């Protein structure tokens, strides 16, 4: 079983609209899976279905090789997009309560919480009411609660929203650490930078349908436009005959040229053409950023 979650042909209709229309995704085991899409695309609905919170009208979800059951909730850690905890309850007490609902015993919950609280440096706040904590600290508490019962599947809905860059970095590190320990991670996000950094696979949902799915590096290759970044010494230049120059920029002693490789030419051929004219300091292919792909796919989709 290579895939931890397989959702097939999920359809979910609400009174006024169809939130998911024949959505299928495969989340590989032990990988980070990014669920992307503009607001209102149906990401949260899909996450709720995988969480066994909402039932799909059609389609099936296979969880770790079997049909999704209510008991599987205990094998999932879910960090919802809209964060919230009991404001008037003490942090420690509240964390123990939520951990017990996930099936941990009180002693075990306390033991693990201590470790995590020390690790994320919020032990001093154990006996404070939640409302006394800063937003960043509340987020940390919530993150701990999500991962505390060490579920095989972790679902983060917009995990980085509301985190400052320092804490976002800590969170990113924790997520990758969890992946390395063998957890499967599914997260939805708008932050394309984080997708490139930590996702192994993605699915892009738009208008209730999956419009793009696959391993991140494959997708980026698929959407490349045959453009290359060539760095040459400042003050030199090469003739346009070899290839089309899309842009150039001088930075100190270097000049960066963005060129498009002619159709049917190999990299070596292009390189030797260029090398005839100038000294080449570096040569690399420009892979489109996930952000570009996201915008392109969504707008293409919009036009159709």
């Amino acid at each position, binding site marked *: 079983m290579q895939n931890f979650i397989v959702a097939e042909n999920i359809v979910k209709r609400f009174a006024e609209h169809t939130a998911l229309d024949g959505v299928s995704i495969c989340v590989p085991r032990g990988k980070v899976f990014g669920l992307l899409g503009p607001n209102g695309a149906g990401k949260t609905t899909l996450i709720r279905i995988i969480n066994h919170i909402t039932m799909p009208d059609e389609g099936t979800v296979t969880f770790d090789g079997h049909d999704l059951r209510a008991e599987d*909730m205990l094998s999932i850690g879910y960090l919802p997009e809209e964060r*919230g*905890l009991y404001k008037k309850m003490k942090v420690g007490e509240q964390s123990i309560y939520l951990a017990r*609902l996930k099936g941990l015993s009180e002693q075990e919950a306390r033991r693990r919480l201590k470790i995590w609280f020390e690790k994320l440096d919020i032990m001093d706040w154990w006996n404070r009411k939640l409302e006394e904590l800063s937003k960043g600290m509340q987020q940390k508490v919530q993150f701990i609660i999500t991962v505390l019962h060490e579920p095989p599947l972790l679902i983060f809905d917009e995990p980085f929203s509301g985190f400052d860059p320092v804490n976002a970095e800590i969170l990113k590190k924790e997520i990758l650490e969890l992946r390395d320990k063998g957890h499967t991670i599914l997260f939805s996000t708008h932050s394309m930078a984080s997708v490139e950094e930590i996702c192994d696979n993605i699915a892009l949902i738009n208008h209730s349908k999956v419009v793009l799915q696959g391993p991140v590096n494959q997708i980026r290759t698929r959407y490349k436009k045959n453009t290359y970044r060539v760095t040459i010494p400042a003050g030199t230049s090469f003739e346009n005959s070899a290839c089309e120059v899309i842009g150039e920029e001088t930075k100190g002693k270097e000049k960066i040229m963005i060129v498009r490789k002619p159709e049917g030419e190999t990299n070596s051929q292009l390189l030797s053409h260029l090398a005839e004219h100038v000294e080449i300091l570096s040569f690399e292919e420009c892979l489109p950023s996930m952000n570009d792909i996201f915008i392109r796919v969504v707008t293409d989709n919009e036009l159709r």
Partner: protein
Amino acid sequence: MSKIWIIIQREFSVRVKKKSFIILTILMPFLVGALVFVPALLATMKSGEKNTVALIDVTNHYAPILKGTSNIHFVRESAMKKSFQQEGSPFDAVVFIRGDLTRNADAATIYSRGEVPHAVEEYVNDKLTEKIRNDRLSVYKFTNIKQVVADAETKFSVKTARWDKNGNTTISSSDIAGVVGIVFSLFIYMFILSYGGMVMQGVVEEKTNRIVEIMVSSVKPWQLMIGKIAGVAFVGLFQFLIWILMLTSIVAIAGTLFGVATTGAMPPVVAMSAEIPQGTGLEWLHIIQGMNFTEIIVLFVLYFIGGYLLFASIFAAIGASINEQQDAQQFMMPIILIFVFALYAGMFSIQNPDGPLALWCSFIPFTSPVVMMVRVPFDLPLWQIMLSLVLLYGTSGLIIWLSSKIYRIGILMYGKKPTFRDMMKWLKYK
């Protein structure tokens, strides 16, 4: 099941540990006591207001009996003066008697610049009534007529007694039964509304806090709903238990202080109706002791639980559907109306505990807890209690089931305020 139990524990302990709960629970019996005794105390205190009243008696016949009291001072005046009407007048009122009152009842009037002082009106009425009656009696030339009339004049109050199942006689009083009934029905009204409201508040808090999103990834929505409803119910029962304990100890202390035997206060006291001295003011204590409080309290708890489950689950569904506390108003309105109607039906049931209104409202689950509490002190047939309880619990079960379907969808719906029709649609969702 164990998850529901964990939720119940939290809902219970969070509320019981609140300062407001502790203070209210301890103070409430004293507040109720104050509510009962302070007005009674105030009523017995004489009003300190003194009235000076001008008395114009053209006939000269009535003036001698209007002597005044410590608070009403009459001053004879010969004729009506313009100055009486003016602001600076020393008189609060003017009693003007123009002719023979036995022939013309309209011949006396009290004038006042403002409202006629009630005490003055009452005093004048009492005195003149007595005088007119005496005048009329003396027309008949009976000897000793006044004594005859005074002898004949009695106010009779029949003593009521009840046989219990063992054939013992218990003094009863429909007045006192009515008062006890009203007290318990007000209590159940208050309990159901305030604890039902507490459930709604809790649900709205969880929804607006968005904690519900975490909760539903650990437990099923219905478990969360049942856990909350049950947890809050235990808070209510816990509070009720404390109050009962406080009350019984207060009654016991009061009993020893007033020398009334309170041993076995709960089981019906075998009455010795004749032996109980009249007018000691302690008679009501014996009557109250004669009531079957064990039965009343058991039924109170049963009706509280049934009525609470019914309304709390409706409140939970409402709380789940709305986005903030203020939106609750439109949905609360019908529920409040039902409760007010139930209270009225209860009040009317005192007059006629076995009438058709009382009977029907005892079986309709939405009104039965309030109405039945009024009727229970009057000793109802067992079949009525059983039928009403079965209907109440059956309906509660059904409403809980329906509410949990609305709740499940509602707590995850944000945005626009749902209409009643939307909520009906949610019932059909998978």
